């Protein structure tokens, strides 16, 4: 019982940290061609995420691996039911990763334009589709003893798309703040301005999302049962407001941490509401995939807990250290003089 709950929390943490870290990579990737007015500025945006995006993406791999190890039935059904959506995410992530690494290795307008498009789509599509996927998980999937009764298009319902839009906006604001944080001069100014403007749209969508969640999902049931949990969405709203306050004062680091907190608490608003389900069934609660009926044996959960307790803090330690190594702003001179690192 206790190990099921530990892994449910860890499951939420892995996704939340993934969205928090990869979120600004996605945001920067989406904004790359729009905020970057010339090759130098584009280079600065790519350099802002260059050293860290790969390590950030591993949180996704680990979230997937942990779901497999701790909740194999959920892993199996979620991945096979959402086959086409995951395939799109996969292709997008492939193109994104390759775009970051290969863009500077060739010449010519077509080559660069092609990878710019790949970087945009490779950042935008996963942001949208992860939102759509989680929106649908919050609502529940049409599944019963016979399996899944839906297609890719079943997922593109109003609430799913709304959640997708929420994710995209969260990541765009997050990414714009990161760009502002990591750059100087004109790009820095435009990025903070952009974050401040899009923030209003994000706020509007977030409010609609919180209200619509009441009607589209069962998430709030847990909250009304134990009112203390409302602290999570309340923090989400407060930190969302804090983004604007800090960004307005030009305190971008504080704005960035507020934006991190927003993403984590938005994720956990869903996670708390889901408990004890991992994927509810929209047909009949009898077919809900819960942390109890879809989990590994207690023995496996114990082994994996030991592994996580030893290694996750180590990972967090060296990842924080590399962020510190690359804490300085990316300068235009760095991009033009150094050119390719290799």
């Amino acid at each position: 019982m206790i190990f099921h709950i530990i892994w449910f929390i860890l499951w939420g943490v892995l996704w939340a940290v993934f969205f928090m870290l990869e979120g600004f990579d996605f945001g920067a990737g989406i904004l790359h061609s729009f905020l970057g007015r010339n090759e130098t500025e584009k280079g600065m945006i790519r350099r802002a995420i260059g050293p860290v995006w790969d390590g950030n993406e591993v949180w996704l791999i680990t979230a997937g691996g942990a779901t497999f190890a701790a909740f194999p039935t959920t892993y199996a059904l979620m991945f096979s039911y959402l086959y086409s959506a995951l395939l799109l995410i996969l292709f997008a992530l492939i193109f994104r990763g390759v775009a970051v690494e290969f863009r500077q290795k060739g010449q010519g307008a077509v080559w660069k334009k092609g990878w710019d498009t790949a970087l945009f789509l490779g950042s935008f599509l996963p942001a949208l589709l992860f939102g759509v996927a989680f929106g649908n998980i919050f609502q529940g999937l049409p599944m019963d003893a016979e399996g899944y009764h839906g297609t890719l298009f079943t997922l593109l319902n109003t609430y799913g798309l709304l959640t997708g839009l929420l994710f995209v906006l969260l990541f765009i604001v997050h990414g714009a703040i990161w760009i502002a944080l990591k750059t100087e001069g004109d790009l820095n100014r435009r990025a903070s301005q952009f974050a401040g403007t899009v923030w209003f749209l994000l706020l509007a969508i977030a409010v609609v999302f919180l209200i619509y969640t009441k009607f589209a999902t069962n998430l709030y049931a847990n909250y009304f049962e134990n009112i203390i949990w409302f602290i999570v969405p309340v923090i989400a709203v407060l930190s969302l407001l804090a983004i604007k306050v800090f960004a307005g004062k030009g305190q971008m680091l504080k704005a960035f941490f507020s934006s991190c907190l927003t993403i984590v608490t938005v994720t956990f608003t869903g996670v708390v509401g889901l408990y004890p389900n991992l994927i509810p069934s929209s047909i009949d609660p009898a077919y809900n995939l819960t942390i109890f009926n879809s989990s590994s044996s207690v023995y496996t959960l114990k082994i994996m807990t030991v592994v996580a307790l030893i290694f996750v803090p180590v990972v967090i330690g060296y990842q924080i250290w590399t962020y510190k190594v690359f804490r300085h702003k990316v300068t235009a001179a760095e991009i033009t003089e150094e050119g390719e690192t290799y």
Partner: protein
Amino acid sequence: MDALALSRLQFAVTAAFHFIFVPLTLGLSILVAYMETRYVRTNDEMYLRMTKFWGRLFLINFALGVVTGITMEFQFGMNWAEYSKYVGDIFGAPLAIEATVAFFLESTFIGLWLFGWNKVTKKVHAISIWLVAIATNLSALWILLANGWMQKPVGYVLRNGRAEMVDFMAMATNPYGWSKFFHTVLSGYVVAAFFVMGIAAYHILRKSDTDFFKRSFKMAASFGLISSLSVFITGDFHAVEVSKAQPTKLAAMESHWETQEGAPYYLIVFPDVQNEKNSIEMLGIPKGLSLLAFHNGNAEVKGLRDFPKDERPPVLPVFLSFRAMAAMGMLFMLLTFLGWILERKDRLEHSPMFLKIMLYSLPLPYLAGQVGWIFAEVGRQPWIVYGLLKTSDAVSKSITAGQVFMSLAGFTLVYGLLALVDIYLLAKYARKGPDSNLSPIIKTTTMAGGGR
């Protein structure tokens, strides 16, 4: 084709494609780390140029290894949901450990290495590529322990309608997995050695930057000689594990039809699958097969006829892929030995024929790795987990043939495109050769001992 056949084909295609990049990463990370260590120790700028040149090729290759790896983890759930449900309790653990222990380390420090030239000290920079090399090899260990469990399931009981882990250490110390790990990573080192020797040979033939490439060749030849000898030895040990765990694979790889004690090894043999015998059988070495398979000349070797037809793997591909792998393995020992001798006698520049052979041999270790995997995976059929779960029972129930057809078409297209880009970039930078003068920023800071 149905969803099962298409899913099998898709897994084969995506795994084979992933394994184009993995072996080079395994070996070249070590070579580049060694080059940079030499640079830190000696301050000889030649080693810095080597680190940069081979490091750039390493990075191009590494990027594709990473992105094609995500596919593999997703696919277990997407296409093989029944498998994942049935064995996830024990099979999921090594995958999750691989991500936690190895992928984070690898991906975090590759970023540091790539962008950290003037941000950390020379020593820390060299350590970061060593961490990448260690992480890459650690990741191979955990994924091969996972695969080793599919080949020889251990440490589980059948309970609650699935395989549940009862002994983590049995899985983590599975001799099948460990012997496979050593054999596989060492074969990756051979790939890297031939990659470096092949490109070096190209430049030595053209007399461009000869010193640089002779030194690269020398390093790779020693590395390759030790590795190809070790691949052979670990292959022999692994074969004993295979023989113990999977009698059907052993019988198929040797085209051995009749159960026999003290079975001979035929140097020339060809299977006649229809009539369940061999159409050619010549030059038998008495007790050879028993000796090879079990390290015991009198051991009994089960023949294919003793197994029901629906539990035998397809004989011909298993038989051929094993022979091709073994033959290439011997060729690698010969070529690396020759390279090592010629280099020691400083005869490389005067052996254009040998250099050409080395250039055109560059793809062979890749090919050997591919047929090695075909042998290992096709040889396990019809089982997905040997003796426990059949491949036909493992496929997702919710996916349709149309869906998998579309995804397979997508993978073929996307991977085809990536392959073209990869080959283009590798060829471009391999041909270009090392930069003659290093970027001023990098030079000054690293010469000054780094620092922030």
